Protein backbone atom coordinates (compact mmCIF):
# COMPACT_ATOMS: atom_id res chain seq x y z
CA UNK A 1 0.00 0.00 0.00
CA UNK A 2 1.51 3.39 -0.95
CA UNK A 3 2.21 6.03 1.72
CA UNK A 4 -0.62 8.28 0.50
CA UNK A 5 -3.17 5.51 1.09
CA UNK A 6 -1.77 4.64 4.51
CA UNK A 7 -1.96 8.34 5.45
CA UNK A 8 -5.54 8.60 4.19
CA UNK A 9 -6.66 5.50 6.07
CA UNK A 10 -4.95 6.70 9.25
CA UNK A 11 -6.62 10.10 9.04
CA UNK A 12 -10.05 8.67 8.39
CA UNK A 13 -9.60 6.08 11.15
CA UNK A 14 -8.87 8.81 13.67
CA UNK A 15 -11.75 10.96 12.38
CA UNK A 16 -14.17 8.04 12.75
CA UNK A 17 -12.72 7.28 16.19
CA UNK A 18 -13.48 10.82 17.40
CA UNK A 19 -17.04 10.71 16.07
CA UNK A 20 -17.65 7.25 17.58
CA UNK A 21 -16.29 8.51 20.90
CA UNK A 22 -18.92 11.26 20.86
CA UNK A 23 -21.60 8.80 19.74
CA UNK A 24 -20.86 6.35 22.54
CA UNK A 25 -20.91 9.23 25.04
CA UNK A 26 -24.23 10.35 23.58
CA UNK A 27 -25.82 6.91 24.03
CA UNK A 28 -24.36 6.60 27.52
CA UNK A 29 -25.92 9.89 28.58
CA UNK A 30 -29.03 9.94 26.42
CA UNK A 31 -31.45 9.60 29.33
CA UNK A 32 -29.83 12.42 31.23
CA UNK A 33 -29.78 14.57 28.12
CA UNK A 34 -33.48 13.99 27.47
CA UNK A 35 -34.32 14.79 31.07
CA UNK A 36 -32.38 18.05 31.04
CA UNK A 37 -33.75 18.98 27.65
CA UNK A 38 -37.34 18.67 28.82
CA UNK A 39 -36.74 20.42 32.13
CA UNK A 40 -38.95 23.40 32.90
CA UNK A 41 -37.50 26.67 34.05
CA UNK A 42 -35.82 25.82 37.36
CA UNK A 43 -36.87 27.29 40.69
CA UNK A 44 -33.67 28.39 42.38
CA UNK A 45 -33.04 27.79 46.09
CA UNK A 46 -31.28 31.11 46.37
CA UNK A 47 -30.11 33.88 44.10
CA UNK A 48 -26.37 34.45 44.32
CA UNK A 49 -25.04 37.75 43.04
CA UNK A 50 -23.98 37.78 39.40
CA UNK A 51 -21.93 40.32 37.51
CA UNK A 52 -21.91 40.36 33.74
CA UNK A 53 -19.03 42.22 32.14
CA UNK A 54 -19.57 43.65 28.67
CA UNK A 55 -16.25 44.63 27.07
CA UNK A 56 -16.97 46.93 24.15
CA UNK A 57 -14.61 48.22 21.53
CA UNK A 58 -16.32 50.05 18.69
CA UNK A 59 -19.61 48.25 19.27
CA UNK A 60 -21.80 51.36 19.00
CA UNK A 61 -24.40 49.61 16.87
CA UNK A 62 -24.86 46.49 19.01
CA UNK A 63 -23.93 47.35 22.61
CA UNK A 64 -27.39 48.74 23.40
CA UNK A 65 -29.07 45.45 22.38
CA UNK A 66 -26.53 43.48 24.41
CA UNK A 67 -27.11 45.47 27.60
CA UNK A 68 -30.88 45.43 27.10
CA UNK A 69 -30.87 41.61 26.76
CA UNK A 70 -28.97 41.42 30.07
CA UNK A 71 -31.41 43.73 31.81
CA UNK A 72 -34.26 41.58 30.49
CA UNK A 73 -32.80 38.48 32.12
CA UNK A 74 -35.22 36.62 34.34
CA UNK A 75 -33.20 37.21 37.52
CA UNK A 76 -33.75 39.41 40.59
CA UNK A 77 -32.65 42.96 39.72
CA UNK A 78 -30.80 43.45 42.99
CA UNK A 79 -28.74 40.30 42.42
CA UNK A 80 -27.55 41.11 38.92
CA UNK A 81 -25.21 43.87 37.87
CA UNK A 82 -23.96 44.75 34.43
CA UNK A 83 -20.54 46.28 33.98
CA UNK A 84 -20.03 47.87 30.58
CA UNK A 85 -16.42 48.69 29.79
CA UNK A 86 -15.62 50.94 26.86
CA UNK A 87 -12.17 49.72 25.84
CA UNK A 88 -11.06 52.96 24.15
CA UNK A 89 -13.61 52.92 21.36
CA UNK A 90 -13.31 55.43 18.54
CA UNK A 91 -16.96 55.28 17.48
CA UNK A 92 -20.12 56.22 19.40
CA UNK A 93 -19.85 53.28 21.85
CA UNK A 94 -19.32 55.54 24.88
CA UNK A 95 -22.27 57.69 23.83
CA UNK A 96 -24.47 54.57 23.69
CA UNK A 97 -23.14 53.24 27.00
CA UNK A 98 -23.68 56.61 28.69
CA UNK A 99 -27.43 56.19 28.24
CA UNK A 100 -27.23 53.70 31.12
CA UNK A 101 -25.23 55.91 33.50
CA UNK A 102 -28.19 56.31 35.88
CA UNK A 103 -29.46 52.77 35.61
CA UNK A 104 -29.32 51.08 39.04
CA UNK A 105 -28.11 47.75 37.62
CA UNK A 106 -25.53 49.12 35.22
CA UNK A 107 -22.05 50.40 35.94
CA UNK A 108 -20.23 52.05 33.06
CA UNK A 109 -16.48 52.49 32.68
CA UNK A 110 -14.18 53.96 30.10
CA UNK A 111 -10.53 52.99 29.76
CA UNK A 112 -7.70 53.17 27.28
CA UNK A 113 -7.72 50.47 24.67
CA UNK A 114 -5.84 47.45 25.90
CA UNK A 115 -7.57 44.46 24.37
CA UNK A 116 -10.56 42.41 25.43
CA UNK A 117 -8.85 40.61 28.29
CA UNK A 118 -7.88 43.93 29.95
CA UNK A 119 -11.48 45.15 29.74
CA UNK A 120 -12.82 41.96 31.30
CA UNK A 121 -10.15 42.00 34.02
CA UNK A 122 -11.03 45.63 34.69
CA UNK A 123 -14.62 44.49 35.26
CA UNK A 124 -13.52 41.62 37.54
CA UNK A 125 -11.58 44.14 39.66
CA UNK A 126 -14.72 46.23 40.04
CA UNK A 127 -17.15 43.63 41.30
CA UNK A 128 -17.68 41.47 44.35
CA UNK A 129 -20.31 39.22 42.81
CA UNK A 130 -20.36 35.46 43.53
CA UNK A 131 -20.50 34.64 39.84
CA UNK A 132 -18.83 36.52 37.05
CA UNK A 133 -19.71 36.34 33.42
CA UNK A 134 -18.70 38.08 30.29
CA UNK A 135 -20.81 38.89 27.26
CA UNK A 136 -19.30 40.15 24.04
CA UNK A 137 -21.05 43.30 22.92
CA UNK A 138 -22.25 41.59 19.77
CA UNK A 139 -24.26 38.92 21.59
CA UNK A 140 -27.67 38.66 23.24
CA UNK A 141 -28.88 36.38 26.01
CA UNK A 142 -32.13 34.42 26.23
CA UNK A 143 -34.09 35.64 29.31
CA UNK A 144 -33.96 32.28 31.11
CA UNK A 145 -30.29 31.57 30.36
CA UNK A 146 -28.86 32.84 33.65
CA UNK A 147 -31.36 30.96 35.82
CA UNK A 148 -30.56 27.73 34.02
CA UNK A 149 -26.83 28.24 34.43
CA UNK A 150 -27.08 29.16 38.13
CA UNK A 151 -29.34 26.12 38.63
CA UNK A 152 -26.57 23.92 37.21
CA UNK A 153 -24.03 25.52 39.55
CA UNK A 154 -26.31 24.87 42.52
CA UNK A 155 -26.86 21.24 41.52
CA UNK A 156 -23.17 20.64 40.96
CA UNK A 157 -21.06 22.45 43.56
CA UNK A 158 -17.83 21.14 42.00
CA UNK A 159 -18.50 22.90 38.69
CA UNK A 160 -16.42 26.06 38.43
CA UNK A 161 -17.53 27.40 35.05
CA UNK A 162 -20.47 26.87 32.74
CA UNK A 163 -20.58 27.51 29.02
CA UNK A 164 -23.89 28.19 27.25
CA UNK A 165 -25.11 27.08 23.82
CA UNK A 166 -24.24 29.61 21.16
CA UNK A 167 -26.69 30.29 18.38
CA UNK A 168 -26.17 32.45 15.34
CA UNK A 169 -28.32 35.56 15.63
CA UNK A 170 -30.67 36.04 12.69
CA UNK A 171 -28.60 34.43 9.92
CA UNK A 172 -29.25 36.16 6.60
CA UNK A 173 -26.88 34.92 3.93
CA UNK A 174 -25.49 31.49 3.10
CA UNK A 175 -22.24 32.12 5.02
CA UNK A 176 -24.21 32.81 8.18
CA UNK A 177 -26.55 29.86 7.63
CA UNK A 178 -23.50 27.61 7.23
CA UNK A 179 -22.17 28.96 10.53
CA UNK A 180 -25.52 28.27 12.14
CA UNK A 181 -25.14 24.60 11.21
CA UNK A 182 -21.60 24.64 12.56
CA UNK A 183 -22.70 26.23 15.86
CA UNK A 184 -25.48 23.66 16.21
CA UNK A 185 -22.94 20.89 15.74
CA UNK A 186 -20.72 22.62 18.32
CA UNK A 187 -23.60 22.43 20.81
CA UNK A 188 -23.55 18.64 20.44
CA UNK A 189 -19.76 18.46 20.58
CA UNK A 190 -19.56 20.74 23.61
CA UNK A 191 -22.29 18.79 25.42
CA UNK A 192 -20.38 15.57 24.84
CA UNK A 193 -17.06 17.16 25.87
CA UNK A 194 -18.79 18.35 29.03
CA UNK A 195 -19.82 14.77 29.84
CA UNK A 196 -16.19 13.80 29.29
CA UNK A 197 -14.93 16.69 31.46
CA UNK A 198 -12.88 17.82 28.50
CA UNK A 199 -14.13 21.27 27.43
CA UNK A 200 -11.29 23.37 26.02
CA UNK A 201 -12.97 26.74 25.63
CA UNK A 202 -15.31 28.86 27.72
CA UNK A 203 -16.71 31.09 24.98
CA UNK A 204 -16.70 34.87 25.36
CA UNK A 205 -20.45 35.09 25.05
CA UNK A 206 -21.87 34.43 28.50
CA UNK A 207 -19.70 31.74 30.01
CA UNK A 208 -20.22 32.08 33.77
CA UNK A 209 -17.42 31.55 36.33
CA UNK A 210 -17.41 31.21 40.08
CA UNK A 211 -15.37 34.13 41.45
CA UNK A 212 -13.04 31.59 43.08
CA UNK A 213 -11.71 30.73 39.65
CA UNK A 214 -10.08 34.14 39.31
CA UNK A 215 -9.00 34.17 42.93
CA UNK A 216 -7.25 30.81 42.62
CA UNK A 217 -5.78 30.82 39.12
CA UNK A 218 -5.76 34.49 38.21
CA UNK A 219 -7.65 36.56 35.68
CA UNK A 220 -7.74 36.50 31.89
CA UNK A 221 -4.52 36.68 29.90
CA UNK A 222 -3.90 38.02 26.41
CA UNK A 223 -3.30 34.46 25.23
CA UNK A 224 -2.91 35.15 21.51
CA UNK A 225 -6.28 36.96 21.44
CA UNK A 226 -8.05 33.77 22.56
CA UNK A 227 -8.33 34.43 26.28
CA UNK A 228 -11.50 32.33 26.51
CA UNK A 229 -9.51 29.28 25.37
CA UNK A 230 -6.53 29.95 27.59
CA UNK A 231 -8.55 30.25 30.77
CA UNK A 232 -10.25 26.93 29.98
CA UNK A 233 -6.81 25.30 29.53
CA UNK A 234 -5.67 26.85 32.82
CA UNK A 235 -8.80 25.60 34.59
CA UNK A 236 -8.22 22.11 33.22
CA UNK A 237 -4.65 22.26 34.45
CA UNK A 238 -5.95 23.11 37.93
CA UNK A 239 -8.61 20.40 37.75
CA UNK A 240 -11.44 22.91 37.78
CA UNK A 241 -14.55 21.44 36.27
CA UNK A 242 -16.18 23.15 33.27
CA UNK A 243 -19.72 22.19 32.35
CA UNK A 244 -22.07 23.07 29.54
CA UNK A 245 -25.68 24.14 29.97
CA UNK A 246 -27.12 23.37 26.58
CA UNK A 247 -30.52 24.84 27.46
CA UNK A 248 -28.99 28.29 28.15
CA UNK A 249 -29.04 30.02 24.80
CA UNK A 250 -26.92 32.96 23.75
CA UNK A 251 -27.41 34.55 20.37
CA UNK A 252 -24.29 35.89 18.75
CA UNK A 253 -23.65 37.98 15.66
CA UNK A 254 -21.66 36.19 13.01
CA UNK A 255 -19.34 37.24 10.21
CA UNK A 256 -21.41 37.87 7.11
CA UNK A 257 -18.61 37.65 4.56
CA UNK A 258 -16.00 35.04 3.78
CA UNK A 259 -13.26 37.56 4.54
CA UNK A 260 -14.60 38.31 8.04
CA UNK A 261 -15.18 34.64 8.73
CA UNK A 262 -11.63 33.88 7.58
CA UNK A 263 -10.18 36.49 9.97
CA UNK A 264 -12.23 35.21 12.91
CA UNK A 265 -11.31 31.59 12.32
CA UNK A 266 -7.67 32.38 11.68
CA UNK A 267 -7.60 33.97 15.13
CA UNK A 268 -9.33 30.97 16.73
CA UNK A 269 -7.15 28.32 15.11
CA UNK A 270 -3.97 30.31 15.65
CA UNK A 271 -5.04 30.69 19.28
CA UNK A 272 -5.72 26.97 19.57
CA UNK A 273 -2.29 26.10 18.17
CA UNK A 274 -0.48 28.62 20.36
CA UNK A 275 -2.38 27.73 23.53
CA UNK A 276 -1.82 24.04 22.88
CA UNK A 277 1.89 24.71 22.44
CA UNK A 278 1.89 26.77 25.64
CA UNK A 279 0.09 23.98 27.52
CA UNK A 280 1.76 21.03 25.79
CA UNK A 281 2.71 19.71 29.22
CA UNK A 282 -0.93 18.65 29.64
CA UNK A 283 -0.95 16.23 26.69
CA UNK A 284 -1.10 12.49 27.47
CA UNK A 285 -1.00 12.91 31.23
CA UNK A 286 -3.46 10.63 33.01
CA UNK A 287 -4.15 13.18 35.75
CA UNK A 288 -5.76 15.52 33.20
CA UNK A 289 -8.18 12.82 31.96
CA UNK A 290 -10.05 13.10 28.70
CA UNK A 291 -8.89 16.68 28.15
CA UNK A 292 -5.38 15.32 27.91
CA UNK A 293 -6.11 12.11 26.00
CA UNK A 294 -9.01 13.16 23.80
CA UNK A 295 -9.59 16.91 23.34
CA UNK A 296 -6.02 18.07 22.78
CA UNK A 297 -4.82 15.11 20.66
CA UNK A 298 -7.93 15.18 18.46
CA UNK A 299 -7.45 18.93 17.91
CA UNK A 300 -3.80 18.45 16.96
CA UNK A 301 -4.60 15.48 14.72
CA UNK A 302 -7.34 17.41 12.93
CA UNK A 303 -4.90 20.21 12.13
CA UNK A 304 -2.29 17.76 10.80
CA UNK A 305 -4.99 15.90 8.87
CA UNK A 306 -6.38 19.02 7.21
CA UNK A 307 -2.85 20.14 6.26
CA UNK A 308 -2.10 16.76 4.68
CA UNK A 309 -5.46 16.51 2.93
CA UNK A 310 -5.10 20.05 1.55
CA UNK A 311 -1.73 19.28 0.01
CA UNK A 312 -2.94 15.90 -1.28
CA UNK A 313 -5.97 17.57 -2.85
CA UNK A 314 -3.83 20.28 -4.41
CA UNK A 315 -1.44 17.68 -5.81
CA UNK A 316 -4.25 15.57 -7.28
CA UNK A 317 -5.93 18.65 -8.70
CA UNK A 318 -2.68 19.72 -10.38
CA UNK A 319 -2.23 16.25 -11.89
CA UNK A 320 -5.85 16.30 -13.12
CA UNK A 321 -5.46 19.74 -14.72
CA UNK A 322 -2.20 18.77 -16.44
CA UNK A 323 -3.86 15.60 -17.76
CA UNK A 324 -6.86 17.54 -19.03
CA UNK A 325 -4.69 20.16 -20.74
CA UNK A 326 -2.67 17.38 -22.43
CA UNK A 327 -5.87 15.67 -23.54
CA UNK A 328 -7.39 18.86 -24.95
CA UNK A 329 -4.16 19.77 -26.75
CA UNK A 330 -4.20 16.38 -28.53
CA UNK A 331 -7.88 15.58 -28.95
CA UNK A 332 -9.24 19.13 -29.09
CA UNK A 333 -11.90 20.68 -26.91
CA UNK A 334 -15.08 18.63 -26.83
CA UNK A 335 -18.15 19.98 -25.08
CA UNK A 336 -20.33 16.95 -25.71
CA UNK A 337 -21.43 15.10 -22.60
CA UNK A 338 -22.01 11.39 -22.51
CA UNK A 339 -25.39 10.42 -21.14
CA UNK A 340 -24.40 6.76 -20.72
CA UNK A 341 -24.03 6.49 -16.97
CA UNK A 342 -22.30 3.31 -15.88
CA UNK A 343 -22.30 2.51 -12.16
CA UNK A 344 -19.13 0.51 -12.73
CA UNK A 345 -17.06 3.70 -12.72
CA UNK A 346 -18.22 4.81 -9.29
CA UNK A 347 -15.32 4.57 -6.84
CA UNK A 348 -16.05 1.68 -4.48
CA UNK A 349 -12.83 1.59 -2.51
CA UNK A 350 -13.08 0.80 1.21
CA UNK A 351 -12.26 4.40 2.04
CA UNK A 352 -15.34 5.59 0.15
CA UNK A 353 -17.69 3.47 2.26
CA UNK A 354 -15.97 4.54 5.48
CA UNK A 355 -16.18 8.19 4.39
CA UNK A 356 -19.91 7.75 3.85
CA UNK A 357 -20.24 6.35 7.38
CA UNK A 358 -18.12 9.25 8.69
CA UNK A 359 -20.34 11.82 6.97
CA UNK A 360 -23.34 9.98 8.42
CA UNK A 361 -21.88 10.39 11.91
CA UNK A 362 -21.18 14.09 11.29
CA UNK A 363 -24.73 14.67 10.02
CA UNK A 364 -26.04 12.81 13.07
CA UNK A 365 -24.09 15.18 15.33
CA UNK A 366 -25.51 18.19 13.44
CA UNK A 367 -29.07 16.87 13.79
CA UNK A 368 -28.72 16.16 17.51
CA UNK A 369 -26.99 19.54 18.01
CA UNK A 370 -29.80 21.29 16.14
CA UNK A 371 -32.34 19.63 18.41
CA UNK A 372 -30.35 20.48 21.54
CA UNK A 373 -30.07 24.10 20.42
CA UNK A 374 -33.82 24.10 19.72
CA UNK A 375 -33.17 25.20 16.17
CA UNK A 376 -35.61 22.80 14.58
CA UNK A 377 -35.70 19.12 13.82
CA UNK A 378 -34.76 16.89 10.94
CA UNK A 379 -32.46 17.44 8.00
CA UNK A 380 -32.06 21.03 6.92
CA UNK A 381 -30.70 21.86 3.48
CA UNK A 382 -28.16 24.29 4.99
CA UNK A 383 -26.11 21.24 5.98
CA UNK A 384 -25.05 20.92 2.34
CA UNK A 385 -23.61 24.47 1.95
CA UNK A 386 -22.03 24.04 5.40
CA UNK A 387 -20.13 20.94 4.30
CA UNK A 388 -19.23 22.46 0.92
CA UNK A 389 -18.17 25.89 2.21
CA UNK A 390 -16.20 24.60 5.16
CA UNK A 391 -14.50 21.89 3.08
CA UNK A 392 -13.14 24.62 0.81
CA UNK A 393 -12.47 27.52 3.18
CA UNK A 394 -11.55 25.84 6.45
CA UNK A 395 -8.27 24.40 5.13
CA UNK A 396 -7.23 27.92 4.05
CA UNK A 397 -7.46 29.52 7.49
CA UNK A 398 -6.03 26.41 9.06
CA UNK A 399 -3.02 26.35 6.76
CA UNK A 400 -2.50 30.08 7.29
CA UNK A 401 -2.61 29.58 11.08
CA UNK A 402 -0.04 26.79 10.78
CA UNK A 403 2.07 28.98 8.45
CA UNK A 404 1.92 31.87 10.93
CA UNK A 405 2.99 29.52 13.70
CA UNK A 406 5.90 28.08 11.73
CA UNK A 407 7.13 31.45 10.47
CA UNK A 408 6.51 32.99 13.89
CA UNK A 409 4.40 35.73 12.37
CA UNK A 410 2.44 37.91 14.75
CA UNK A 411 -0.94 36.81 15.98
CA UNK A 412 -3.98 37.69 13.89
CA UNK A 413 -5.71 40.89 14.88
CA UNK A 414 -8.90 40.83 16.88
CA UNK A 415 -10.70 42.39 13.91
Amino acid at each position, binding site marked *: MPFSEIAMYTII*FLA*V*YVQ*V*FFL*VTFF*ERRKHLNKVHKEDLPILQSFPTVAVIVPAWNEGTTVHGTVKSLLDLDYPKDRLEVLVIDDGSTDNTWEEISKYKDHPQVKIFQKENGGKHTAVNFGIDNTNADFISCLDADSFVAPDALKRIINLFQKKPDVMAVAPSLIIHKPKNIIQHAQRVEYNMSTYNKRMLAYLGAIHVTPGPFSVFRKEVFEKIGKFRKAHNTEDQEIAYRMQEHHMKIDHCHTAYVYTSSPNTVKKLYKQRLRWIYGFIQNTIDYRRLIFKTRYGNFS*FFTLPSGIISIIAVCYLSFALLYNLTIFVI*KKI*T*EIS*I*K*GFNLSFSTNF*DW*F*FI*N*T*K*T*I*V*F*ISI*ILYGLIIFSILVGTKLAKQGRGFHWHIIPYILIYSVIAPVWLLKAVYNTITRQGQPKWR
Partner: protein
Amino acid sequence: MKGFQKYFFVLIITCGIFATGWYLSNYVNNKKINEIKDIQNKIAIDILSSETQFSLLEELSCQDLDNSILSQEIAKVADKINFSEQNVGNAEEIDSLKKQYTILQVKDFLLAKRIGERCKQTISTIFYFYGNKESCVDCLKQGFVLDALRKKYPTLRVYSFDYDLDLSTVRALKSIYKIENVLPSLVVQGKTVSGFKTVEELESMLPKELTNPKKEPLVGSTKKP
Protein backbone atom coordinates in the same frame (compact mmCIF):
# COMPACT_ATOMS: atom_id res chain seq x y z
CA MET B 1 -17.66 3.22 31.17
CA LYS B 2 -14.62 4.47 33.03
CA GLY B 3 -11.14 5.43 32.05
CA PHE B 4 -9.41 3.58 29.26
CA GLN B 5 -12.16 0.99 28.97
CA LYS B 6 -14.10 3.48 26.86
CA TYR B 7 -11.10 4.23 24.62
CA PHE B 8 -10.78 0.51 23.98
CA PHE B 9 -14.52 0.06 23.38
CA VAL B 10 -14.51 2.93 20.86
CA LEU B 11 -11.48 1.38 19.19
CA ILE B 12 -13.39 -1.89 18.74
CA ILE B 13 -16.40 -0.07 17.22
CA THR B 14 -14.15 1.94 14.90
CA CYS B 15 -12.45 -1.26 13.75
CA GLY B 16 -15.94 -2.71 13.22
CA ILE B 17 -16.84 0.24 11.00
CA PHE B 18 -13.64 -0.30 9.02
CA ALA B 19 -14.44 -3.99 8.65
CA THR B 20 -17.94 -3.10 7.42
CA GLY B 21 -16.48 -0.65 4.89
CA TRP B 22 -14.01 -3.27 3.73
CA TYR B 23 -16.74 -5.91 3.41
CA LEU B 24 -19.04 -3.62 1.41
CA SER B 25 -16.19 -2.56 -0.86
CA ASN B 26 -15.19 -6.18 -1.42
CA TYR B 27 -18.76 -7.18 -2.17
CA VAL B 28 -19.28 -4.44 -4.77
CA ASN B 29 -15.83 -4.94 -6.31
CA ASN B 30 -16.48 -8.67 -6.74
CA LYS B 31 -19.64 -7.75 -8.57
CA LYS B 32 -17.61 -5.50 -10.84
CA ILE B 33 -15.07 -8.25 -11.56
CA ASN B 34 -17.91 -10.62 -12.38
CA GLU B 35 -19.31 -8.02 -14.74
CA ILE B 36 -15.98 -7.86 -16.59
CA LYS B 37 -15.87 -11.66 -16.70
CA ASP B 38 -19.37 -11.76 -18.20
CA ILE B 39 -18.44 -9.27 -20.88
CA GLN B 40 -15.23 -11.14 -21.69
CA ASN B 41 -17.18 -14.40 -21.98
CA LYS B 42 -19.53 -12.68 -24.37
CA ILE B 43 -16.59 -11.45 -26.43
CA ALA B 44 -15.03 -14.91 -26.43
CA ILE B 45 -18.28 -16.31 -27.78
CA ASP B 46 -18.40 -13.55 -30.41
CA ILE B 47 -14.91 -14.45 -31.58
CA LEU B 48 -15.64 -18.16 -31.59
CA SER B 49 -18.76 -17.42 -33.62
CA SER B 50 -16.74 -15.36 -36.10
CA GLU B 51 -14.12 -18.10 -36.38
CA THR B 52 -16.87 -20.60 -37.13
CA GLN B 53 -18.27 -18.19 -39.67
CA PHE B 54 -14.82 -17.93 -41.21
CA SER B 55 -14.57 -21.70 -41.48
CA LEU B 56 -17.73 -21.61 -43.52
CA LEU B 57 -16.29 -18.90 -45.78
CA GLU B 58 -15.81 -21.22 -48.68
CA GLU B 59 -19.56 -21.61 -48.84
CA LEU B 60 -20.27 -17.92 -48.21
CA SER B 61 -19.44 -14.72 -50.07
CA CYS B 62 -17.49 -11.99 -48.33
CA GLN B 63 -20.62 -9.79 -48.26
CA ASP B 64 -22.35 -12.38 -46.08
CA LEU B 65 -19.61 -12.29 -43.49
CA ASP B 66 -20.30 -10.24 -40.41
CA ASN B 67 -17.32 -7.92 -40.46
CA SER B 68 -17.83 -6.49 -36.96
CA ILE B 69 -15.67 -9.21 -35.47
CA LEU B 70 -15.13 -7.65 -32.10
CA SER B 71 -18.11 -6.87 -30.03
CA GLN B 72 -18.49 -3.17 -29.27
CA GLU B 73 -18.31 -4.27 -25.64
CA ILE B 74 -14.56 -4.85 -25.86
CA ALA B 75 -13.78 -1.13 -25.74
CA LYS B 76 -15.78 -0.92 -22.54
CA VAL B 77 -13.82 -3.83 -21.10
CA ALA B 78 -10.58 -1.95 -21.63
CA ASP B 79 -11.90 1.05 -19.71
CA LYS B 80 -13.24 -1.16 -16.97
CA ILE B 81 -10.03 -3.15 -16.56
CA ASN B 82 -8.07 0.10 -16.49
CA PHE B 83 -10.39 1.57 -13.84
CA SER B 84 -10.33 -1.66 -11.81
CA GLU B 85 -6.54 -1.75 -11.85
CA GLN B 86 -6.48 1.60 -10.07
CA ASN B 87 -9.52 1.28 -7.88
CA VAL B 88 -10.60 -2.30 -7.21
CA GLY B 89 -7.41 -3.59 -5.70
CA ASN B 90 -7.82 -7.32 -6.34
CA ALA B 91 -4.54 -7.45 -8.25
CA GLU B 92 -4.50 -11.17 -9.06
CA GLU B 93 -8.03 -11.19 -10.43
CA ILE B 94 -7.46 -8.07 -12.49
CA ASP B 95 -4.20 -9.47 -13.85
CA SER B 96 -6.03 -12.59 -14.97
CA LEU B 97 -8.75 -10.51 -16.66
CA LYS B 98 -6.08 -8.47 -18.38
CA LYS B 99 -4.42 -11.60 -19.74
CA GLN B 100 -7.74 -12.85 -21.10
CA TYR B 101 -8.33 -9.49 -22.71
CA THR B 102 -4.88 -9.56 -24.29
CA ILE B 103 -5.47 -13.03 -25.76
CA LEU B 104 -8.86 -11.96 -27.10
CA GLN B 105 -7.21 -9.03 -28.84
CA VAL B 106 -4.64 -11.25 -30.51
CA LYS B 107 -7.31 -13.73 -31.58
CA ASP B 108 -9.30 -10.88 -33.02
CA PHE B 109 -6.28 -9.61 -34.91
CA LEU B 110 -5.48 -13.02 -36.37
CA LEU B 111 -9.06 -13.58 -37.46
CA ALA B 112 -9.36 -10.10 -38.97
CA LYS B 113 -6.10 -10.68 -40.84
CA ARG B 114 -7.33 -13.98 -42.29
CA ILE B 115 -10.66 -12.50 -43.34
CA GLY B 116 -8.82 -9.55 -44.87
CA GLU B 117 -6.63 -11.84 -46.92
CA ARG B 118 -9.57 -13.97 -48.00
CA CYS B 119 -11.79 -11.03 -48.92
CA LYS B 120 -8.95 -8.85 -50.34
CA GLN B 121 -9.50 -6.11 -47.79
CA THR B 122 -6.80 -3.97 -46.17
CA ILE B 123 -6.91 -4.20 -42.40
CA SER B 124 -5.47 -1.10 -40.72
CA THR B 125 -3.90 -2.03 -37.39
CA ILE B 126 -1.77 -0.48 -34.70
CA PHE B 127 -0.21 -2.47 -31.87
CA TYR B 128 0.42 -0.26 -28.89
CA PHE B 129 2.86 -1.40 -26.20
CA TYR B 130 2.54 0.69 -23.06
CA GLY B 131 4.01 0.68 -19.56
CA ASN B 132 3.10 2.14 -16.18
CA LYS B 133 3.52 5.84 -15.52
CA GLU B 134 6.97 5.34 -14.00
CA SER B 135 8.39 3.42 -16.97
CA CYS B 136 6.53 5.35 -19.66
CA VAL B 137 6.04 9.06 -19.10
CA ASP B 138 4.67 9.58 -22.63
CA CYS B 139 2.09 6.79 -22.49
CA LEU B 140 -0.60 9.15 -21.24
CA LYS B 141 -0.10 11.41 -24.27
CA GLN B 142 0.17 8.42 -26.62
CA GLY B 143 -3.14 7.10 -25.31
CA PHE B 144 -4.82 10.41 -26.16
CA VAL B 145 -3.29 10.30 -29.67
CA LEU B 146 -4.66 6.81 -30.26
CA ASP B 147 -8.07 7.86 -28.90
CA ALA B 148 -8.07 10.74 -31.38
CA LEU B 149 -7.14 8.37 -34.22
CA ARG B 150 -9.88 5.92 -33.23
CA LYS B 151 -12.39 8.71 -33.28
CA LYS B 152 -11.19 9.95 -36.66
CA TYR B 153 -10.99 6.47 -38.24
CA PRO B 154 -13.58 4.19 -36.64
CA THR B 155 -12.37 1.24 -38.74
CA LEU B 156 -8.80 1.48 -37.46
CA ARG B 157 -7.99 -1.46 -35.19
CA VAL B 158 -5.82 -0.45 -32.24
CA TYR B 159 -4.59 -3.28 -29.99
CA SER B 160 -3.07 -2.33 -26.67
CA PHE B 161 -0.59 -4.51 -24.77
CA ASP B 162 0.93 -4.06 -21.35
CA TYR B 163 4.67 -4.41 -22.00
CA ASP B 164 5.22 -5.84 -18.52
CA LEU B 165 2.39 -8.37 -18.61
CA ASP B 166 3.70 -11.84 -17.78
CA LEU B 167 2.08 -13.67 -20.67
CA SER B 168 3.66 -15.81 -23.36
CA THR B 169 1.48 -14.18 -26.04
CA VAL B 170 2.88 -10.75 -25.19
CA ARG B 171 6.42 -12.16 -25.12
CA ALA B 172 5.84 -13.68 -28.56
CA LEU B 173 4.57 -10.39 -29.95
CA LYS B 174 7.54 -8.52 -28.49
CA SER B 175 9.87 -11.05 -30.10
CA ILE B 176 8.13 -11.03 -33.51
CA TYR B 177 8.01 -7.23 -33.75
CA LYS B 178 11.36 -6.71 -31.99
CA ILE B 179 9.95 -4.44 -29.30
CA GLU B 180 12.72 -3.01 -27.11
CA ASN B 181 12.23 -1.57 -23.67
CA VAL B 182 11.55 1.90 -25.11
CA LEU B 183 8.00 2.88 -24.34
CA PRO B 184 5.64 3.67 -25.86
CA SER B 185 6.33 1.34 -28.79
CA LEU B 186 3.98 1.01 -31.72
CA VAL B 187 3.61 -1.44 -34.59
CA VAL B 188 1.85 0.31 -37.45
CA GLN B 189 0.92 -1.99 -40.33
CA GLY B 190 3.65 -4.38 -39.19
CA LYS B 191 6.33 -1.68 -38.89
CA THR B 192 7.80 -1.08 -35.43
CA VAL B 193 8.45 2.45 -34.16
CA SER B 194 9.51 3.55 -30.70
CA GLY B 195 8.80 6.67 -28.67
CA PHE B 196 5.88 9.07 -28.71
CA LYS B 197 4.26 9.62 -32.12
CA THR B 198 1.82 12.38 -32.99
CA VAL B 199 -1.49 11.94 -34.83
CA GLU B 200 0.10 13.25 -38.05
CA GLU B 201 3.12 10.94 -37.80
CA LEU B 202 0.90 7.89 -37.34
CA GLU B 203 -1.49 8.98 -40.10
CA SER B 204 1.41 9.08 -42.55
CA MET B 205 2.17 5.43 -41.76
CA LEU B 206 -1.39 4.18 -42.15
CA PRO B 207 -2.63 2.80 -45.51
CA LYS B 208 -4.33 5.16 -47.94
CA GLU B 209 -7.39 2.89 -47.97
CA LEU B 210 -8.05 4.05 -44.45
CA THR B 211 -7.62 7.78 -44.97
CA ASN B 212 -9.32 7.70 -48.43
CA PRO B 213 -11.57 4.66 -48.17
CA LYS B 214 -12.97 3.12 -51.38
CA LYS B 215 -14.45 0.04 -49.85
CA GLU B 216 -15.55 -0.63 -46.32
CA PRO B 217 -12.83 -2.23 -44.20
CA LEU B 218 -13.40 -4.36 -41.16
CA VAL B 219 -14.88 -2.55 -38.17
CA GLY B 220 -13.64 -2.61 -34.59
CA SER B 221 -10.86 -1.53 -32.30
CA THR B 222 -9.61 -2.18 -28.82
CA LYS B 223 -8.24 0.06 -26.13
CA LYS B 224 -5.50 -0.03 -23.55
CA PRO B 225 -6.96 -1.76 -20.51
